[in-house]
């Protein structure tokens, strides 16, 4: 190869207590290319990029930027070297406008130190135009869409003269259409001479946008290839170490009587804005109903309303003929409704507590686990060990703190607890987020099993593949409404993308 090398991470090793996050990693990016870095959660992609961006220091290894050996021990150094990073979690100040966020810390100012806001606005608009996107300099970020926020983040790096842009899972929060727009932006950036590192686990996107791809697994590089010489199947097998496709084995659903009937439900979000605007849906015994949509379109509030975590403003939630709207979570749980919440670490688990304490979170008060308010530790141990076995929670013992488990195993603790009480209705929200592929399969199988055993399941997920594969019927949510009901077997991804963007037929 005669191409110039923009980034060369040489022989990087980084160890955290108990885990080797990066092991002798060698990572090269050519100048002016779009380079995808793929791998499952926990494969070490983020650690590697944190090392490149100066957030973490490697235990061993060297960093060469444009052929020069560099010591990047803080973010400032990385920025000065022309490296810009767009994090998965945006780092924007909500009450600031786009230019205020973009210029933060480096605003143009006169000799008295007074900031030239007009000059900054013009500068930002000019940069945006150069790379072919629009920016409204007076829009505060709190009122901006996710796509606009992301573009602001990209502009921020360009404002700081970044030549190398690292985008950490940029498409996770976007609709398919917004993703297309992002790809156009990325191509313009590369045309203008920038180098882009694109972190993702969506292989379809890699094939579409990247020139080359580096695959990581368990802290090591599994392979580097040009996208034109590889395939999704090959990349997938490198990622997981075996051939895996997201397919769920299941028979045709045999729905019976209605379990849940939601009618014209309206719910406000924490800011007091309407998040759910007149949703109606029903779920029958023996079926899985899916809710697809880009996150932030009211799915969270819908689930919170159904599980009693949020008051409803209007409408009814009829469960087995009884209106449970605005009822208490405990009351709702007593009626055998299980909830696998989207935020595993804050809502789903107390990560400071042990596995067994988490496993009995919904059943500790009943016999035989406790009598007269006193735990029967032997019974609890039997109960917990059985769940650990049944749900294949990989841990040496049940007294281990949940925080020391991997994401997938943590999620299995949640699933085990929720399904252990023989629910009639299971509400699963983003049940496989941050879970590795092997465990995703297991969780999907359990949801299908619930259905086949005569349960009703509501599956809310931002992963389109997941909803399409697992659910029997799918409602697409957009801006608080279900804009379309589809049979997942009868629509394709691009069709779904349009619905997810609020375009009805």
């Amino acid at each position, binding site marked *: 190869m005669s191409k110039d090398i923009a980034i060369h991470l040489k022989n990087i090793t980084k160890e955290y207590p108990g885990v080797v996050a990066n092991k002798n990693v060698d990572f090269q990016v050519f100048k002016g290319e779009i380079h995808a870095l793929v791998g499952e959660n926990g494969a070490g992609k983020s650690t590697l990029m944190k090392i490149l961006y100066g957030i973490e220091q490697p235990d061993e290894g060297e960093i060469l930027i444009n052929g020069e050996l560099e010591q990047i021990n803080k973010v400032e150094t990385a920025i000065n070297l022309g490296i810009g990073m767009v994090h998965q979690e945006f780092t924007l100040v909500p009450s600031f406008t786009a230019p*205020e966020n973009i210029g933060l810390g480096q605003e143009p*100012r006169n000799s008295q130190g007074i900031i030239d806001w007009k000059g900054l606005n013009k500068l930002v608009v000019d940069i945006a135009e150069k790379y072919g996107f629009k920016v409204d300099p007076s829009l505060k970020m709190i009122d901006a869409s996710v796509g606009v926020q992301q573009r602001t983040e990209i502009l921020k790096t360009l404002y700081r003269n970044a030549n190398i842009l690292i985008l950490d899972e940029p498409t996770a929060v976007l609709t398919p259409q917004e993703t297309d727009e992002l790809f156009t932006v990325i191509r313009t950036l590369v045309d203008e001479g920038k180098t882009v590192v694109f972190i993702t686990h969506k292989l379809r996107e890699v094939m579409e946008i990247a020139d080359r791809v580096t695959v990581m697994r368990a802290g090591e590089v599994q392979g580097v290839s040009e996208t034109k010489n590889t395939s999704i199947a090959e990349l997938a097998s490198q990622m997981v170490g075996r051939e895996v496709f997201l397919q769920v084995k299941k028979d045709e659903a045999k729905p019976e009587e209605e379990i849940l009937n939601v009618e014209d439900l309206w719910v406000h979000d924490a800011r007091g804005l309407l998040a759910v605007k007149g949703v109606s849906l029903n779920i029958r015994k023996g079926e899985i109903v899916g809710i697809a949509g880009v996150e932030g379109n009211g799915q969270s509030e819908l689930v919170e309303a159904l599980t009693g975590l949020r008051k409803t403003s209007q409408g009814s939630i009829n469960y087995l003929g009884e209106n449970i709207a605005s009822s208490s979570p405990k009351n709702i749980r007593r009626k055998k409704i299980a909830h696998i919440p989207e935020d595993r670490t804050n809502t789903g688990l107390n990560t400071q507590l042990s596995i067994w304490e988490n496993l009995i979170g919904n059943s500790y008060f009943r016999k035989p686990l406790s009598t007269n308010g006193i735990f029967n530790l032997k019974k609890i141990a039997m109960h917990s060990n059985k769940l650990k076995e049944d749900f294949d929670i990989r841990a040496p013992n049940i007294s281990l703190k949940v925080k020391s488990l991997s994401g997938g195993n943590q999620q299995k603790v949640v699933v085990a607890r929720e399904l252990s009480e023989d629910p009639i209705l299971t509400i699963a929200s983003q049940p496989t987020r941050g879970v590795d592929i092997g465990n995703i399969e297991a969780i999907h199988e359990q949801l299908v099993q619930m259905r086949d055993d005569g349960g009703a399941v509501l599956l809310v997920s931002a992963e389109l593949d997941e909803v399409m594969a697992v659910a029997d019927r799918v409602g697409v949510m957009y801006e608080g409404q279900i804009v379309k009901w589809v049979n997942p077997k009868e629509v394709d991804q691009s069709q779904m993308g349009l619905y997810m963007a609020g375009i009805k037929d």
Partner: protein
Amino acid sequence: MEWIEIFDLSIFRSLLRSTAPIAIVGMAAAMCSAAGVLNIGLEGKMLNAAFAGVYASYTFESVWAGFTAGIIAGLLTAALFGLLSFTLGADEVLAGLAINIFALAGTTYLMRTIFGQAGFFSDPRIVGFEPISVPFLRGTFLEPFLSDFTYSVYLMFVLAILLHTVYYRTRLGTAIRATGENPEAAEDAGINTVRIKWMVTVFSGLLAGISGIFLSLENLTMFTEGMSAGKGYIGLVASSFGNNTPFGTFGASLFFGLGDAIGIRLQGVYELDSRLILMIPYALTVVVLILIGIRQRLRVRPVPINESSIE
């Protein structure tokens, strides 16, 4: 008419005098809160400065010695707060409370051991600030309104304008606001948020110190146990009511000052119980806190379904 008797020139002057200490410490609180530092310890900083000011003024028979000593006391107390909160990682509220309790007990103890006095200490040797006549106001119609105040009133106006400029028109100001709202975004922009927090804390020590000195060396020249009398807390409330902005805090402080001024005036007109009058600022604090609560409720008020627009 009684009301006309109450609202006259003297109440305007009394309003500015009462507002100044609250506004100055309030703006200190505003800078801290804007940077995400909940600085409860302002009260203690004021008290330490008030005592140090009296002590130095008495010892050296110089008001500027008192001024310097008071500022040093304010800065040292601020440094202690910063050390506890940022360096040692203590809870900011607890660190602030500790400082306030320590200041109250410490100044009381020192007064009793150094001056052998309990309750209050007053002596002719303590030199206080004299009112200043503003040259360019002389002879104008504004002279009776704005001239011949002591420093604190003028400082309050200067500070409000200065801090407003810093807050909205300098890198430091945007850095402070970014640190308070989203520290990660600030760090990402290369802003050292810990340094910003230290800066606003030290600055608050300076302002609280100055405010404390004015308590003991301006209109009165004496030190009384616990003489800050909750002004640090009232300043915090004023800054919260003013959305942590300099002008907002100034406006909210005027509200407290007005209550104070009316109270003093009523005392003259109606011969009310002085203890009732002394309660006014604290009663107003409760009122303002309720108003803040109501304002927050209004902000998150659910949009009535019928009014909302659904395409």
